[in-house]
């Protein structure tokens, strides 16, 4: 009788606080406000440290989901979506008492608040002792967003705390779990996409050529790690941090002219273009004839209109292909002039393999991927792969430079997610 009564009591209490899992039980908005409440500061870390750790924790979720989080210290409390606070024993009006040092370190309420047991020894990210507040915060935020406990090794949603690792990040399965709750992956248009070539000398004097893939959207960018199927941890980064001298609100196109006799990297925006100095990691101030950058596209590339939608350099014929609306312009870098017969309609240069499945101009990016050894045209949330010459060898019925049926960008390049602008600098 005593046991049944006890179980009944616990069950009634639990009904008020269980987190249930479902594909559609989640926040219905994309931008969520959070606050560390004033009466709930920890006694163990400075307030600034606590807020920094929570900003980082929310940002980590933002980097892998379509959600954005903003710290809100000014709105009425009822307008704040997620409130965080520390307490001990009976705390913050909560009906679930903390147990003191050991065992329970925090709890969270679905679509609600997070409480941390201040009797635990919470420490900052750089410490190797105690309980990592960052790790616990990321876990509890996961509950607030709708994730249950997951028993998979490596999951951030494991119920038990595992001591400090050198770093912890959201793995593939955790990402997919949160994305499943929030309408799939992260979608959005890109300003430009390119593979940046680096030349490195080995200790033996050989030159090794490496590349890194970059996605740019407006004023920020991501490095995409093709072998890991994700972006670099901590991205996106503001454009001016990594690319010095190009417009901070974004570019229209990137071109890498790469032949035996020529090598140059150009960024295009509006009516202008810049040449990038990869040795000194900034734009050139002047060209070889002393003309200052930025220069007008109409002067540097006679016959090419501006602004352009995108461009790429084709090493097969040493032409830069510029895209503007439904027209394609082929520019010969050898003769520094428009190739004969151009401009042409985009459908003539890149015919659809499947009738009707075509971007029809105004593309966002033309991207040659060394990883895939293929050219892609991106528009909106979709991309079309251009038929390669090897492919035509095997399937001669495919049209030259044909566009394969479209796919979704987020099914090829994963987890390229925005964060709130206030989170760009933590």
């Amino acid at each position: 009788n005593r046991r049944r009564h006890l179980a009944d009591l616990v069950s009634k209490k639990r009904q008020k606080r269980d987190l249930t899992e479902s594909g559609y039980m989640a926040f219905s908005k994309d931008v969520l406000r959070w606050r560390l409440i004033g009466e709930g500061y920890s006694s163990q870390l400075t307030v600034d440290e606590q807020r920094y750790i929570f900003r980082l924790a929310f940002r980590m979720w933002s980097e892998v989901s379509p959600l954005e989080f903003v710290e809100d210290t000014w709105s009425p409390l009822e307008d704040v979506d997620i409130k965080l606070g520390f307490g001990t024993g009976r705390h913050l009006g909560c009906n679930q008492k903390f147990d003191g040092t050991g065992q329970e370190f925090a709890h969270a309420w679905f679509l609600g608040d997070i409480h941390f047991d201040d009797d635990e020894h919470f420490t900052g990210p750089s410490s190797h002792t105690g309980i990592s507040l960052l790790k616990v915060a990321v876990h509890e935020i996961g509950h607030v967003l709708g994730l249950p406990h997951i028993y998979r090794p490596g999951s951030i949603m494991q119920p038990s705390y595992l001591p400090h690792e050198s770093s912890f990040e959201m793995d593939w399965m955790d990402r997919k779990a949160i994305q499943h709750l929030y309408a799939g992956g992260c979608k959005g248009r890109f300003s430009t996409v390119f593979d940046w070539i680096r030349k490195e000398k080995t200790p033996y004097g050989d030159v090794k050529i490496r590349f890194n893939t970059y996605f740019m959207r407006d004023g920020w960018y991501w490095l995409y790690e093709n072998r890991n199927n994700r972006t670099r941890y901590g991205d996106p980064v503001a454009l001016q941090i990594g690319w010095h001298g190009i417009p901070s609100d974004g570019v229209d196109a990137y071109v890498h002219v790469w032949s035996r006799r020529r090598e140059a990297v150009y960024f295009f925006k509006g009516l202008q273009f810049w040449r990038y100095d990869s040795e000194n990691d900034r734009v050139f101030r002047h060209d070889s004839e002393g003309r200052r950058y930025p220069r007008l596209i109409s002067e540097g590339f006679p016959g090419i209109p501006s602004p352009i939608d995108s461009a790429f350099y084709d090493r097969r014929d040493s032409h830069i292909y510029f895209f503007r609306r439904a027209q394609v312009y082929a520019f010969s870098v050898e003769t520094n002039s428009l190739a004969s017969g151009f401009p042409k309609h985009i459908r003539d240069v890149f015919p659809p393999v499947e009738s009707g499945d075509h971007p029809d101009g105004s593309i966002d990016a033309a991207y040659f991927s060394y990883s895939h050894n293929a050219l892609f045209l991106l528009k909106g949330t979709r991309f079309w792969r251009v038929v390669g010459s090897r492919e035509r060898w095997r399937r001669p019925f495919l049209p030259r430079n044909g566009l394969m049926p479209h796919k979704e960008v987020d099914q090829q390049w994963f987890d390229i997610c925005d964060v709130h602008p206030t989170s760009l600098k933590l």
Partner: protein
Amino acid sequence: EKLFHNRDHSDMQIPTSHQAPVITDEYEAELFLSRYGFIKPTQREEIQMKQTLKEFQMVSGLPVTGVFDDATKDAMNKPRCGVPDKETDPNPHVVTESHIGGSDQSQPLQ
């Protein structure tokens, strides 16, 4: 203050009254299993404890013995999240807007 001598406070002494009660026997283990959703009120008593212990041992990566052994005791005393591992509400509500309210949470608002 809580007493400590080391620079990094790693030797901070916690008063006994501030320490979580250690799980030492089967009764306390039963409370633990109940608290985190492993025991359902409707389960028959005689099969409850062994089965739920096995379930807890399985998800915790422990040898599945069905017995409250030392490894199970250690696992129960480790730091963990206060959210139950298993749901009990068979009819979750569909929530269409974010929850607004104080810390004393009841049902999410529609």
